[in-house]
């Protein structure tokens, strides 16, 4: 093979791999992206039951109930939305604090979460939640100061 042909093979392989990668990324982008909403967003928007979304907000004080197979309801702020979750809640799940849950709306209007992410220490709040709280004017300055990283 000449130098030119060899270069051709090399460039061809690169293009094929790149093409496959771009295809995979685009395909994955279409199917496995999760959007983040607050309860008030959900009240305003039409979101089909079953579509996977993330829901973030504050756990309303006094709203958590635990059944034998422990689902808990955590209707967050301004617009309340009941959330059910089966499983063990994270250590830092507490009433009155910010959480992000992932799951889907049910036909009965509740939100069924299959994962609950709570903040990592008492000061940390998911930036998404913080941004929403600021928007809605219930942000307490300094509440998110001094978080901690695990790196």
């Amino acid at each position, binding site marked *: *093979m000449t*130098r030119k042909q*060899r270069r051709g*093979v*090399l460039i061809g*392989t*690169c293009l094929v*791999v*790149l093409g*496959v*990668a771009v295809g*995979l*990324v685009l*395909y*994955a*982008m279409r*199917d*496995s*992206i*999760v*959007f*983040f909403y607050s309860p008030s967003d959900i009240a305003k928007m039409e979101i089909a039951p079953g579509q996977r979304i*993330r829901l973030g907000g504050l756990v309303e004080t006094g709203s958590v109930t*635990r*059944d*034998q*197979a*422990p689902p808990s309801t955590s209707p967050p702020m301004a617009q309340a939305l009941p959330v059910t979750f*089966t*499983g*063990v*809640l*994270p*250590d*830092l799940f507490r009433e009155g604090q910010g959480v992000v849950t992932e799951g889907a709306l049910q036909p009965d209007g509740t939100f069924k979460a299959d994962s609950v*992410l709570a903040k*990592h*220490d*008492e*000061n*940390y709040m*998911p*930036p*998404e939640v913080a*941004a929403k709280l600021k928007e809605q004017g219930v942000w307490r300055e300094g509440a*998110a*100061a*001094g*978080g*901690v*990283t*695990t*790196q």
Partner: protein
Amino acid sequence: MIAETGHYALILALGVAIVQMVLPVIGTRFNDPRLAAVSVPAAQAQFILICIAFSALTAAYVTSDFSILNVWQNSHSAKPMLYKISAVWGNHEGSMVLWVLILALFGAAVATFGSNLPRQLQANVLAVQGSIAVAFLLFIVTTSNPFLRVDPAPFDGQGLNPVLQDPALAFHPPFLYAGYVGFSMAFSFAVAALIDGRIDAAWARWVRPWTLLAWMCLTLGIAMGSWWAYYELGWGGFWFWDPVENASFMPWLAGTALLHSALVMEKRDALKVWTILLAIITFSLSLMGTFLVRSGVLTSVHAFAVDPARGVFILGIMSVFIGGSFALFAWRAPLLSQGGLFAPISREGAWVLNNLLLTVACAAVFVGTLYPLALEAVTGEKISVGAPFFNLTFVPLIVPLLIAVPFGPLLAWKRGDLLGAAQRLTVAALVSLAAIIGVLALHQSGPWLAPLGIGLGLWLIMGALTELATRSKLFEASWAESRRRLRNLPRAAYGTALAHAGLGVMVLGLVATTAWRSERIEALAPGGTVDIAGYQLTFEGVKEGQGPNYKELAGIFQVTRDGQPVTTLVPSKRAYSVEKSATTEAGIHNSWRGDLYLVLGDPLKDGAYSVRAYFNPMVRLIWLGALFMFFGGAVSLSDRRLRVGAPKRAKAKTPTAVAAGE
């Protein structure tokens, strides 16, 4: 007083670093060897000064000097000594001091042990290292000073986040940083070569040990982080494709590619321009890792608190170094001579494929990590990209690479014989095939891809053994002859085999755990039982305990298997009074078959507790594989060819290939 000494040393180090950055460049530019030689003592002095600063900070933590803001915020007198020390780098300011300490250590090593480097190259390398140090020292001194005082001094500290109080995490950041910062060596060498406009095989020979060392540290650092997440966070998972994790994984992927392309360059004088580019990319990704973690731009379960001043500063550092080095690359790379020829099917070709797939896979991770940030910045829409995205993109790109791995070392340089290599791999292929069929027969459950994954893991392990067998003519020559050959194989060959086998071991663990993990969530009252994966767990009740700086509520579970007692697991929830937060301590029973993983949840009605039990088959193979890779790197690093004799520079303008000294 100690703190002021540390602060002063830090500022002096900044001054020295500026000298180290400027004078050598002037010296090499105007051919003044005395100016260029300043780089050596400057690098050593910088290391000593940062050592003093770091020791001062450590002393403040050890003696619990709460008059220092940083100590007050992150330590507490009731904390065990190990965590007082690890708290030094368990926070932003201290971790940046550790970052520059490691940077200075590497620089001092080049200054001290690089006496057989060409003078000009050494001076330029140290100047580039000096410029990185200037940027980060400036960052520390202006935005993240760890030595700030509080007045009046508080009585006691606020404590370290309890989830960080853990042995694996105590050593996770130093290794991770040694990896990140270690790649700065490859970067400095690359930029020095670009400034020089000249590069040859000796260059690659100099870069390789540093890259290998950095890669080893990063491998171990990531593995420790993953292990910690596994047993400490109580979710039973080992990798979450979290942006913070991806931030360390991207430099690892690029660094792995760099390791291989530097090898091609050293042996065959090919892929020069690409290797330089890869060195720049690897360190850029390391910088980006630092930026992502330190600036708080990420939406992450363990994101850092937002502090825009710092974020903008690191962003500035990043733009200068990445932008500058790429500009330099665009300007100077055409000067570098093209290297040796090779056929597509050859060892070089295999390494090109390795590089191609690794960098593209890295790019896919990059897109998945940064796309949500970019989208939010542009449209304000918040999305999150989780594991499904990475499973769909990263896995299909990396699997062909894993299949190709055993072929690489069996192909000859320049022009390889694919059929010959395939014949040598027959045994390996048959073993993997048998395993696939065996697993299919045993486990009808689980995803259909899982048996193929097990086959892939075995294929990698057998492939690594095949290489050793081929090189020692095992079963071809006499046993004595093979033994002699095995003894005389270079250590690098064993290192390669060990690292590639480690990859296989890791694949086995990943596949088995992902495919056949079982999970039970139950509400258990004392006396209740739950069955999982052949184990029977009996809940005996809870007891309260008191640790050095926490209170705990522990559940006691008797574990039996076929009626035989196995062990008692005591998962607990700890409440740290100082930090006012809680952690989950999972109860884990390790065995080669897999881990029984138990988490005590919240109290329910009537004295019952929610309990989550996992069985993670063969999960420890994941970390065992990472250890194999680490030791493979270590064995390879101890190869005498990497240490002595070799680095003789090719004469300018005669780019002769270094004899491929296998």
